[in-house]
């Protein structure tokens, strides 16, 4: 644990990134580019939250890199004044892996969407998560293809009527949190575009996690999938559906309902009165066994009956980039830096006079 333990006020995921002398403000992270999302897009809220969050990192602006793929969400890097790569469809986790592995002094953020990250880039995403490269993956899930104008995505509910599925889509959707947990992710969280305070707290927790962190952000697409998350936003229904997970606190939905252990090691939502408040599970994001976090991720599937938000899992293990660089420093400490002339002449040589 010592390797990953954070010093006072410092985010553990940034321990190899230089500290900033500058006190940044939100405006310092706005680029000069005109933001070109559709009016009412949830991306605006995420961008604003992210820009106002970045000063909290306490690292120089030049040591922050945004890497994205293709899709509406992937335009994100253009609107931030950090370094950025707007790459190719689905490949951002791979590109970020090379960058973060070779540059542990950077804070690397991958911005992706449900199509980019779970469809064309699904393979890169799961492998980046299992390797535990020190990157933060923010997956904007609007459950639709936006930039290609409204086809169903890998998170669209089955039966969805879209341009490419006029009589209903046939695909069973992914649950991104379940997928990330199955891919051995050490940090998995979910938040909502419209809840800036919650979003910011989750971003901070992600940055604090050394290694790969995965954050699913429910994001509304007002053009092609408007109100997809309305059940979670309507003020009256919201509290009955959102399960706000806080480490060490009982899992409650509003006043009356809570989560207890069910059959076969699963979890179920019950009336608190029927079981007594002491039987409610106290959330433990640090459980090594991912089974508990996985069971949490299945509570809402597939409808929005009860939706956990917050940090499902925050378990630390050595980071990929840390291990790669450790192997190099160990080899150098043991046998010294490589000498090119010695290398070229290794093996059997002979001399012609």
């Amino acid at each position: 644990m010592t390797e990953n333990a954070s010093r006072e006020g410092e985010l553990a995921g940034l321990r190899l990134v230089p500290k900033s002398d500058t006190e940044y403000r939100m405006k310092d992270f706005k680029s000069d580019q005109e933001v070109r999302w559709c009016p009412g897009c949830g991306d605006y809220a995420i961008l604003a939250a992210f820009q106002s969050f970045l000063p909290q990192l306490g690292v120089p602006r030049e040591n922050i890199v945004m890497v994205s793929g293709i899709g509406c969400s992937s335009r994100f890097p253009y609107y931030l004044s950090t370094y950025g790569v707007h790459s190719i469809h689905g490949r951002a986790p791979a590109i970020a892996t090379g960058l973060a592995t070779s540059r542990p002094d950077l804070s690397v953020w991958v911005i992706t969407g449900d199509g980019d990250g779970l469809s064309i880039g699904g393979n890169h995403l799961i492998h980046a998560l299992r390797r535990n490269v020190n990157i933060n993956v923010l997956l904007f899930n609007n459950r639709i293809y936006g930039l290609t104008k409204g086809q169903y995505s890998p998170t669209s509910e089955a039966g969805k009527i879209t341009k490419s599925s006029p009589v209903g889509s046939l695909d069973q959707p992914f649950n991104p949190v379940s997928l990330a947990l199955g891919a051995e992710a050490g940090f998995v969280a979910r938040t909502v575009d419209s809840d800036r305070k919650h979003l910011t707290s989750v971003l901070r927790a992600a940055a604090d996690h050394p290694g790969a962190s995965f954050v699913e952000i429910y994001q509304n697409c007002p053009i092609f999938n408007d109100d997809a998350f309305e059940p979670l936003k309507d003020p009256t229904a919201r509290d009955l559906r959102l399960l706000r997970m806080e480490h060490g606190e009982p899992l409650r939905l509003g006043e009356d309902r809570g989560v207890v252990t069910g059959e076969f090691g699963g979890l179920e939502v019950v009336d608190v009165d029927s079981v007594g408040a002491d039987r409610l599970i106290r959330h433990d994001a640090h459980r090594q066994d991912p089974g508990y976090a996985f069971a949490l991720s299945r509570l809402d599937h597939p409808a929005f009956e009860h939706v956990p938000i917050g940090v499902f899992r925050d378990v630390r293990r050595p980071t990929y980039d840390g291990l790669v660089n450790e192997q190099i420093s160990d080899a150098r400490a043991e046998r010294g830096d490589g000498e090119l002339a010695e290398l070229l002449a290794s093996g059997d040589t002979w001399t012609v006079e």
Partner: protein
Amino acid sequence: MAKQIEQLDRVIIRFAGDSGDGMQLTGDRFTQETASFGNDLSTLPNFPAEIRAPAGTLPGVSSFQLHFADHDIMTPGDAPDVLVAMNPAALKANLGDLPRGATVIVNTDEFTKRSLAKVGYAVDPLTDGTLDAFKVSAVGLTSMTVAALADSDISKKDAQRAKNMFALGLLSWMYNRPTEGTTSFLKSKFAGKPDILAANLTAFQAGWNFGETTEDFAVSYEIKPARLPAGTYRNITGNLATAYGLIAASQRSGLPLFLGSYPITPASDILHELSRHKRFGVRTFQAEDEIAGVGAALGASFGGSLGVTTTSGPGMVLKQEAVGLAVMTELPLLIIDVQRAGPSTGMPTKTEQTDLLMALYGRNGESPVPVVAPASPADCFDATLEAARLAVEYRTPVVVLSDGYLANGSEPWQLPRVSELPTIDPAFADGPNGPDGEFLPYLRDERTLARPWAVPGTAGLEHRIGGIEKHAESGDISYTPGNHDLMVRTRQAKVDAIARDIPELEVSDPTGDAKVLVLGWGGTYGSITAAVRRVRRAGGRVAQAHLRHLNPFPANLGEVLRSYDRVVVPEINLGQLSLLLRGRFLVDVIGYNKVRGLPFKAEELADVLQEVIDRD
């Protein structure tokens, strides 16, 4: 009685056996002995893609051919003078390549009824006259190995496995090879297994002793060391030379090396080799797929590393998307494509030159990339270093087209002096370049047209790049028609301008009056050169030139082509360079094309050249 020693100037030996017989190891050891003796040499391993094809079958035959000489040679040789056949399958698979009078050493223990039937021999070819044209030495390699190890504690199976060392010992005696190298190799290979070590050493020695004492071998041969230029040499394969070239490029540029790669035949050895050199700060990343391999390399390049990916054709196809991004973002990136027979999976262990057009044109949009092709195994070192220089100095992806023959083949390499290797200047951007103190990530160097390489961590140069078309200076997203036209032309002009920075094409035309030029590229250099020598020895006049740079071409290429009445272009494809030359220069070149998964034979090329010369 002292045996007679006969002097030879060159020999071609082919070791052939089952995939599990250790023929590659045997050939490699004989090669190392030959290298340390000081002969010039060239090798051709040839093995199936299957790891252990069914024993004793034709598809399971693995062979290793070695050509060595007391003079400078260019190829692994057309036809073996000596075939060592460890079983009937090895004999049958290779017999057709033998010239009359060749020596055939067969392991008679494997010529059982069952083994013969497995490859369709109804009658034993050792007795039915099939081998009448050859000098046959029938030797019980397996039984003699087992007998030599009778006192050993190892199992019969392990004893039988040592038969390749018996064969190596016998051949080492026949050709008066030094044996210390093999002895120390075995000691290190089997350091933890003293029984197996002892068995292999005993079998090796027994093979040598057998040659020395038996009446079957009356003569041994001596091939004097070659008169190579003074210097220190080692034997090297193309893949090893490529790996060393990459480390050298890292050292000479000061850029940490990052390899993103997915295992693929015949390129994997570069990944294996580089993963061993962490002391040089080399980071190797075995990716989840070919796409992630190149993606990670490009990400590392963005961060200021020398980003490299290694692959072969089926992987190259998958990488093209990211290569396009590297073209657009104008970042240094090396793509090493060790070509193999295609299309699709093709023949993974066989060589081909069929990825040239894919390297040049296999991406969407106008997407120019420099392409460099090494000419010989050792040349992979220089070609890779040169490719890295272009990639870094011009901020561009560069494709290196090696091939399966170069990758696994080997030859002596005169070690370069490190201090004389070229240096590469990354010239990272360190401050604003705009008229108003701003940073313009696409404002170009006037000479090279390269854009600034500003790596994260550099304060004040924060910028965003990506695959979308961008403004010619600011790099901001731009869909303006005129700007796109300008950018397409500028990216092309940048690559074209490299022609000023590479050597002109050299032509070898000793008599100065040849009417026919033979022009090749990449791994066919050895075969073509050997063919040219044959033609000239027979009095024919032919000029020769070989392209290392396939994009851009050397500045004088058009002039060279037009200086000859006829131009012959041999390629191990159906005419990809020919197509380019015709399209670019309107010269009606004569293609000579074969795609057999093997290098050209010098003799066949010589015949082709002679035929074209005789057309007058």
